[in-house]
């Protein structure tokens, strides 16, 4: 049997082969035609720029001098980055911002998720309310909070004065101490709705029976929360943590609109420093070197996350 079968198959296929390969050819052409519109733009607008960024990062080039004046400069850009407060401070600020914003947004998101999980009349209304900040354009949010945080008679400082008697409230975005915390507050407020609704989906997938078992064991609210809710939400927490870090790391709009990295370098973040080097000073090579560093960090982070997920799935399979 085993020796006959291959022969048989070959005999069957042979006469068809020319027809088949031309058909295959036609199929391939069709497939390439289908992906072409998307692929062409993708190559031109994403892939080519990624490669070009690497190349540019080893050059010294001011855009205003024209493309003929691109000068190869080796790793000079990377060496200069280390002495540039716009780069080093941007790394520190981005890290601080991420460390504060991600966990606080998640904690508040979980709090709101627990609220939204309650049986209420018109459940759609609280969901709409909480989600509005998330879908609002960052520029609009910047405009609103710049006014709210206004140092002179802005509603927040008036509130601080009237309620707590703080006579010397912070000047917020105008203060190098308070500008970054103020940006954090705005970002947290914007992100709560998204985190809450993701957590809500997680909460609703926890089987009711687990709570019943815990209740029979005499577990109180806190024990049930600690030993049923939190552990079963851990995949959601992991997901929100990862996406949160990735988004915080890219923060740009709020900084570009509200503070332009200032006062001084107190609120500059990596994405804004890239923009500033490239589009305020036209130092394209230098900006590209920062971009490469940002890319390396993002790739490293994604790789670590991927490895953790791999290990988790293997653990679950075993």
């Amino acid at each position, binding site marked *: 049997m085993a020796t006959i079968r291959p022969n048989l198959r070959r005999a069957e296929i042979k006469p068809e082969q020319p027809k088949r390969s031309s058909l295959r050819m036609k199929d391939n052409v069709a497939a390439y035609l*289908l992906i072409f519109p998307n*692929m062409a*733009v993708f190559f031109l607008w994403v892939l080519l720029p990624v490669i070009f*960024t690497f190349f540019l990062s080893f050059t010294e080039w001011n855009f205003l001098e024209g493309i003929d004046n691109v000068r190869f400069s080796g790793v000079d850009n990377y060496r200069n980055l280390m002495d540039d407060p716009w780069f080093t401070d941007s790394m520190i600020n981005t890290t601080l911002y991420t460390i504060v914003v991600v966990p606080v947004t998640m904690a508040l998101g979980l709090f709101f998720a627990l609220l939204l999980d309650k049986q209420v009349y018109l459940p759609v209304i609280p969901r709409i309310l909480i989600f509005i900040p998330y879908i609002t354009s960052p520029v609009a949010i910047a405009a609103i909070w710049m006014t709210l945080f206004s140092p002179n008679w802005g509603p927040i400082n008036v509130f601080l004065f009237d309620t707590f008697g703080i006579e010397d409230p912070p000047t917020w975005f105008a203060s190098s101490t308070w500008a970054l915390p103020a940006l954090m507050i705005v970002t947290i407020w914007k992100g709560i709705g998204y985190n809450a609704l993701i957590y809500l989906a997680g909460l609703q997938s926890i089987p009711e029976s687990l709570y019943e078992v815990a209740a029979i064991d005499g577990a109180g609210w806190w024990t049930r929360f600690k030993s049923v809710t939190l552990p079963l939400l851990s995949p959601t927490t992991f997901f929100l943590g990862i*996406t949160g870090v990735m988004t915080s790391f890219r923060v740009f709009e709020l900084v570009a609109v509200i503070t332009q990295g200032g006062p001084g370098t107190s609120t500059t973040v990596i994405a804004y420093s890239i923009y500033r080097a490239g589009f305020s000073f036209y130092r394209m090579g230098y900006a590209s070197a920062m*971009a490469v560093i940002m890319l390396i960090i993002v790739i490293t982070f994604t790789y670590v996350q991927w490895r953790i997920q791999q290990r988790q799935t293997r653990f679950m399979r075993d």
Partner: protein
Amino acid sequence: MSGNNAHFAQFIQHRKQKNWTRNIGDKLRKAGVTLLVFVFCFMMVIPFIWTISSSLKAEREIFAYPPQFFPTEVTFDNYLIVMGQHERIRPQVSLARAYWNSIIVTIPGVIGPLVTAILAAYAFARLKFPARDFLFFLYLVTMIVPIQVLIVPQFMLANALGIYNTHWALIIPYLSVAYAVFLLRQSFMSIPQDLIDAAKIDGAGHLGVIRHVIVPASSATIAALAILLFVWRWNDFTHPLIMLNRRDLYTIPLALSALIQDRENARTGGLLAGTILAILPLFVVFVIANRQFIRSMVHTGVKG
């Protein structure tokens, strides 16, 4: 016998009453919880309410002390100012123009990537061709690249192609959205082969299969994607910022940021009115289609 019956009726009556009082108790409890949840969620939108209320105030009232939440006299001057309709006060940008600009880049910015992504995702999900997996892998890898990494070369590319400072610079790049291809491919892979075979037997080619089988079967995913693309394009700030410097081309987010820089002319009132006008279209669509919005943002697992 009858006494017994009466007794029974009384018992039923009593039970009903007890049930009724319990129901009332439940309802009151639920109303209480509702109130609590509403109050907490309402706190999230106080900044918006304050903005609406202040945009209807006269300029000197906005930062008046003692503060007043509602305007003493409602005025629409601020809205006239930012729409370029006020007879004296003219800011450097008019939102009326920006509305139009945003609309003409958002419509192709939603339809364009949807069409190209449907075609490409169909090929990736349903056809076999050389280098397919490698090409798809490229899409996946570049999905994590932050936009800011690419702004320098993209700006140069736009210059080289001669589309810098035109709306084309906001339309052409978005004809390919890697995430759209990725999401649609997932969805297309789950369509049963039988449906496609049946259409092919009826003589449908690839485009026929896409039109009559693939698109209808994945309409929910396509709708979710359309919403995401709409929000992304409407709110997009980074790309217009590097691609446009002519004020008459500004889209809404860019015009709003120009109003922020132009506080002297626009004044706080104008800025707040502009903010409300900038938010309004998306807000209206969101309230109407809130279910679809939340589903597309929460269940596709992507951050805007």
